């Protein structure tokens, strides 16, 4: 079974702190994604990566950056956390290729910025 793990289930940070959210997948997937989930807004894509060291902006990249130094690991960075970044953050991975469409999600990290 594909497993996507996220470094923390719950995280509390202060405004202005630098925050790192880590995601690891164990199925050698090429694609990895970071979403945030907010009530009434659904899943919104922040960034995604289709290969090591490659990244593309999603729909809401402002205030975030990402790093993918190894194929299995994709990190989301909040350079200076703000209260409006309080949210549930979900990581996902998928395989590239025709017929490979399913995204596998981690359990999420609930981040609170005070």
């Amino acid at each position, binding site marked *: 079974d594909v497993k996507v793990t996220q470094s923390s289930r719950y995280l509390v940070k202060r405004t202005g702190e630098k925050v790192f959210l880590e995601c690891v997948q164990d199925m050698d997937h090429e694609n990895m994604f970071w979403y945030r989930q907010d009530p009434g807004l659904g899943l919104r894509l922040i960034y*995604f990566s289709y290969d090591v060291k490659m990244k593309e902006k999603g729909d809401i990249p402002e205030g975030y950056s990402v790093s993918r130094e190894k194929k299995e690991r994709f990190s989301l960075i909040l350079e200076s956390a703000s209260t409006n970044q309080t949210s549930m953050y979900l990581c996902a991975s998928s395989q590239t290729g025709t017929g490979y469409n399913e995204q596998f999600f981690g359990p999420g990290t609930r981040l609170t910025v005070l």
Partner: protein
Amino acid sequence: QQQVKQSPQSLIVQKGGISIINCAYENTAFDYFPWYQQFPGKGPALLIAIRPDVSEKKEGRFTISFNKSAKQFSLHIMDSQPGDSATYFCAAKAGNNRLAFGKGNQVVVIP
């Protein structure tokens, strides 16, 4: 701009009833339409998916109906059970491995 519009936002169904969630899309380049199910405290997981060359797909009590001309697709949950209580997301994919998600629908099945 929301590429996939989902309705209704929430749904309460009696046990044994039918739950129906609808989604509409605009981009005719979408070629894959999945539904994801999310339980509290968990990440979403793929429930069922369809390609636009078929009009219906059924897996157990879950059915996707697809109307290409209307650019709409829907999820039907037959004989709804309390264990089906979850948030359901429709999504659509074009060729670049990205999924565009709807806003989600909370389904509550009451005994």
